[in-house]
């Protein structure tokens, strides 16, 4: 199957006074139609900047310095802003972490949804209303017709995030990028949104990139997982394979850090140290300074190795070391 999205060697750097900050540095992955990719990493790993780069939302001092993003046959990098606009929001939509920030507090739900609709389509008022009710119902807002004239502050956090998801769905996009959409929500609400998202993706066949720091959340939703560290994807593969048989020591470290994997009361096998500064990355593998398996070879860049359906960047992969 031809991929819906093909990202090759994408690099986004921020040119600050302190030097070039390599937020994303050589990210490649692809996504099939209807596939859900979980992009996992800690803060500063470059997962959000990757999402923003795909949408062309990088602003100075940030710049996409190289790479290619092919989406539905179009090359998005270097595309004119006008052409990008016709794709963004229509074929490619985004849901952000905090719906209180992304919804306009002084516009009713109907007004902001109709603005998003009219950006790409001329529709009658009745048609707009009908479409809004349709997508709001789809994301689990009961009695949507009566909530259209409400303002964002009249909704709870979970309901607001549903509205944000509904806006992303307005044009039936073929890809939705969701950046930590449940992080700000409580577990019970998160479970509601996760269930609804999973059903939606199945029902309407949209592809989804779910960006999150939480492996458990991602594993409940994603077909494939890509683990990011210091601006690179260090491991990628089918969800079950990555979680069951992680090859990269960082993936293993992340999994071991979860309290659910250790007997209560025992010290957790934590990863020592912290992520290196993106301004001053170590030579070779960025994870080497924190890695128990590192040796001299790790001062050279590990190439991408493919095994089974997955891939990783490591000189000393777990279970495959010679």
């Amino acid at each position, binding site marked *: 199957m031809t991929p819906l999205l093909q990202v090759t060697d994408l690099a986004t750097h921020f040119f600050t006074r302190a030097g070039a900050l390599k937020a994303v540095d050589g990210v490649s992955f692809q996504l099939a139609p209807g596939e859900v990719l979980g992009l996992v990493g*800690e*803060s500063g790993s470059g997962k959000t900047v990757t999402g923003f780069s795909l949408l062309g939302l990088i602003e100075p001092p940030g710049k996409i310095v190289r790479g290619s993003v092919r989406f539905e046959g179009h090359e998005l990098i270097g595309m004119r802003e006008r052409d990008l606009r016709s794709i963004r929001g229509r074929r490619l939509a985004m849901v952000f972490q905090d719906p209180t920030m992304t919804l306009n507090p002084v516009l009713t739900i109907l007004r902001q949804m109709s603005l998003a609709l009219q950006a790409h389509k001329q529709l009658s008022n009745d048609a707009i209303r009908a479409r809004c009710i349709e997508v709001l119902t789809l994301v*689990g*807002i*009961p*009695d949507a017709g009566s909530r259209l004239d409400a303002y964002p502050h009249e*909704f*709870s956090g*979970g*309901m607001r995030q549903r509205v944000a998801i509904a806006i992303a769905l307005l044009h039936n996009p073929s890809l939705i990028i969701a950046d930590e959409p449940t992080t700000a929500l*409580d*577990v*019970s*609400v*998160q*479970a*509601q949104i*996760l*269930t609804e998202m*999973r059903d939606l993706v199945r029902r309407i066949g949209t592809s989804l990139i779910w960006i999150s*720091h*939480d*492996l*458990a*959340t991602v*594993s*409940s*939703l994603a077909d494939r997982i890509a683990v990011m560290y210091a601006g690179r994807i260090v491991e990628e593969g089918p*969800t*079950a394979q990555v*979680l*069951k048989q992680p090859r990269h020591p960082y993936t293993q*470290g*992340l*999994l*071991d*850090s*979860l*309290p*659910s994997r*250790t007997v*209560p*009361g025992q*010290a*957790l*096998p*934590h*990863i*020592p140290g*912290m992520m290196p500064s993106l301004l001053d990355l170590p030579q070779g593998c960025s994870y080497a300074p924190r890695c128990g398996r590192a040796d001299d070879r790790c001062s050279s860049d590990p190439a991408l190795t493919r095994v089974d359906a997955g891939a990783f960047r490591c000189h000393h992969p777990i279970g495959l070391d010679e």
Partner: protein
Amino acid sequence: MTSDAFLAAEDVSKRFVLPVLWSERVAARFTRRGWIAPVRVVHAVESVSLFIRRGEVLGLVGESGCGKSTLGRVLTGILPASSGQVLLEGKPIMNAAGRKIDRRIQMVFQNPYASLNPRNRVGRAIAEGPLAHGLTTPAGAAAYVGGWLTRVGLDASCADRYPHEFSGGQRQRIAIARALAMQPEVLICDEPVASLDVSIQAQIINLFLQLRRELSLTMLFISHDLGVVRHLCDRVAVMYLGRIVESSPTASLYEAPQHPYTRALLASVPKLRLDQEAASFRPIAGELPSPLAPPSGCAFHARCALVQPICLSDVPPLRPIAEGREAACHVVTAGDARTIPQPPGPGKPRETPFTDKKIDFDRDSE
């Protein structure tokens, strides 16, 4: 009340009266007694009694808005209780004027970016309290601070630096050192690892485990993360809309949760999915009602699969259901802890749409 209680809350309530908005003053009614503006009261904590034994770590879990942070602040003595009292070794921690008189309870806050003054050097932030309480002298302060910094895994030289020079995990260590420098016997931790990344979170959890062992601290660990609580705590209290609905030793709570809310909460946590099978979590229907207008009877009744007529009218008291376990539920009572009906089949949430329940509750509370 158990006799071996070290820190105890006795029937503590905390209400916040919200300032009346200008628009509501306009809408105020004129009666014989004068202008009556609607008064809005948030029932953040409602008659909570709990105790922590010496050396015990009690976990306090619940969703945002359930009142767990407010309860933590009342227990620390930062906020005075609206009614009820907090006792440390049987003595109130507040004097009659509502001022905290006990240094032995200290708090660690969620966000180390907000809880450390950016313009104070770390050393000064840590030394301030101990100096005021005579735990150290101006001459000995540097060594005293250095000792506590080393204890939390930082270098003593960090004292001369400012908070912005540290990462989130390091700042949380500084915040812990600041609380410990007061030589507390009880440490109240309000979501101390929530804002940290997984790998850093594990480091801080390990630090808590180590400190607890070394200093035999008594702790209240407030968190929404049920995995972290299971790892750290001896006993867990579950809060829902201002009240404790269940308290139990950690192992039995996670193995066999009794209160329908505890069960639903535990079931809603996504677990790491290692096989292709469908994910093993189930959402709770509905939303947390507003503490401005708590529902009548059991606050959980509108979302509960086991609801009975009595749940709509009477608030269930917290009562013993098994050895060391308590639950506030009309349906789950002592004796039938093993035979209670389970909620409807797995993977099938109750067929209630996600209604905004506030409207119903307004009617109920009339």
